[in-house]
């Protein structure tokens, strides 16, 4: 069995890596989004996520106790050591795909952080409380866009439906519980992820209905990210993300 400390380290990497990789994807939009207002809003979300990355990964480094801080963890691990879910590394696609990815994630993220505010580990509870405020707004915003695009024009409806369908298979992983999650449940540090599924589905159904969209049927779930089994996209993200740290190994910036 995994030690509690090892499980906690893994768990914090998952939280941090989700924020890091999704923040990276969102930051790719900066300067290319459909309207200035969206450049502002997407950057806001990305900034929140980068901030959360720092908090989670610094804590992860503390827990690990090998002198790695958030930057070292973000910039000097290769893809197999990343622990984000597959959903967040999926390419931006069109604006509908970005919003579908965001809505799926935000809803889960919100439910998770809400639980984590009650973590027995006060460091986790604090970071979660700070994050929860931000994510409440993220969710409001991505939900609003699902409504707008779903119930907007014929084209936007079709694109939004395609996006929901395409990304659906990456949502199952969010609710799976493995030995890391079990350890967190045992120690009262983290929730049983499977209990988030029902409220999450409730929000999905209500939103899809209001948006005149059809939520995909429960089906086979793509998994692996939490264990470092990623899609082929992550490597390219890291090539850009880590270039300077890799190319100038002893520099400070």
């Amino acid at each position, binding site marked *: 069995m995994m030690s509690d400390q090892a499980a906690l380290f893994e768990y914090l990497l998952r939280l941090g890596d989700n924020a*890091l990789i999704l923040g*990276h994807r969102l*930051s*790719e939009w*900066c*300067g*290319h*989004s*459909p*309207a*200035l*207002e*969206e*450049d*502002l809003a997407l*950057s*806001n979300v*990305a*900034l929140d996520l*980068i*901030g959360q*990355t*720092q908090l989670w990964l610094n804590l992860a480094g503390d827990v690990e106790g090998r002198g790695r801080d*958030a*930057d070292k963890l*973000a*910039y000097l691990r290769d893809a197999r050591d990343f622990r984000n879910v597959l959903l967040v590394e999926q390419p931006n696609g*069109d*604006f509908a795909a970005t919003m579908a990815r965001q809505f799926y994630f935000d809803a889960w993220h919100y439910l998770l952080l809400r639980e984590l505010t009650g973590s027995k580990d006060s460091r986790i509870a604090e970071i979660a409380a700070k994050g929860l405020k931000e994510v409440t707004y993220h969710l409001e915003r991505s939900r609003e866009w699902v*409504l*707008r*695009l779903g*119930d*907007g*024009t014929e*084209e*936007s409806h079709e*694109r939004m439906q395609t996006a929901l369908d395409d990304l659906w298979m990456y949502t199952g992983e969010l609710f799976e519980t493995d030995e890391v999650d079990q350890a967190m449940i045992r120690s009262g540090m983290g929730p049983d992820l499977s209990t988030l599924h029902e409220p999450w589905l409730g929000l999905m159904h209500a939103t899809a209905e209001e948006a005149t969209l059809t939520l995909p049927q429960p089906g086979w779930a793509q998994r692996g990210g939490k264990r470092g089994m990623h899609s082929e996209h992550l490597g390219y*993200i890291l090539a*850009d*993300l880590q*270039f*300077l*740290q890799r190319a*100038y190994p*002893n*520099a*400070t*910036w």
Partner: protein
Amino acid sequence: MSPEERAFQDRVDQDIKIEPKEWMPEAYRKTLIRQISQHAHSEIIGMQPEGNWITRAPTLERKAILLAKVQDEAGHGLYLYCAAETLGVTRDELMEQLNSGKAKYSSIFNYPTLTWADIAAIGWLVDGAAIMNQVPLQRCSYGPYSRAMVRICKEESFHQRQGYDAMTKLARGTPEQKQMAQDALNRWWWPSLMMFGPSDAESVHSAQSMRWKIKINTNDELRQKFVDQTVPQAEYLGLTVPDPDLKWNAGRGQYDFGEVNWEEFYQVISGNGPCNRQRLRTRVKAYEEGRWVRDAADAYAAKKGARAKAQAA
């Protein structure tokens, strides 16, 4: 001068702000629209060279700072388009002018960002030059523009400090970082000086704009001020300004400096800079690919409005 023009000029002379609904000379309106929208376009196009390094920023903190900065530029663009709209033009019209290549934007954004040091150099030099231009405009005669400038200047000077800080890290860093910093200074110095526009002798419209107080200082004054401020900063960093003619003139209490290569300036202005095509295409692409999203948002708002109305009835 007509009585209206006389009254208008009096108010300007007394430093009373002109507000949107007041009478103003048509030429004043037109000049302001051109000036404000060029400034707005510059903020928007300026997002690209810096945005180029967001995904490759070297630390999480630098990434956050850079992203926030580029976000601020989008915000400045918004303020400025709003200020322009008070003069009777829509944001869409202005965007179309930008996309069609009809409108100008600051030529400096047609240079590429080749290394991370360019991001530092842009903050330090380009924002430094921008502030030099913008601070006096806080006192300009048109109210909405003047107020936009107040907000913008506050943020720009923050950016400038962050840029200088990033440059300091490089200049005090490894030999490779130091070289990167010097190289960036070499490439951005002259384009920064060009940001103040051609020498006043060459500059059209200047006199009238100064009478209207939508231009406060001459180009050469501001350029001199920028040089005087920046050269000591470069020295402090141990970097060399790439101008063999640069030297302190104790008599004037100012720096003498070499002649700007105006041939290059006019080349870049006229479309032949390293990135003109790329910048415009990227912008047009974002605008065109975003159309269906804006249309959907409009359609949704209309439906929602209609439903609310139906419910109220």
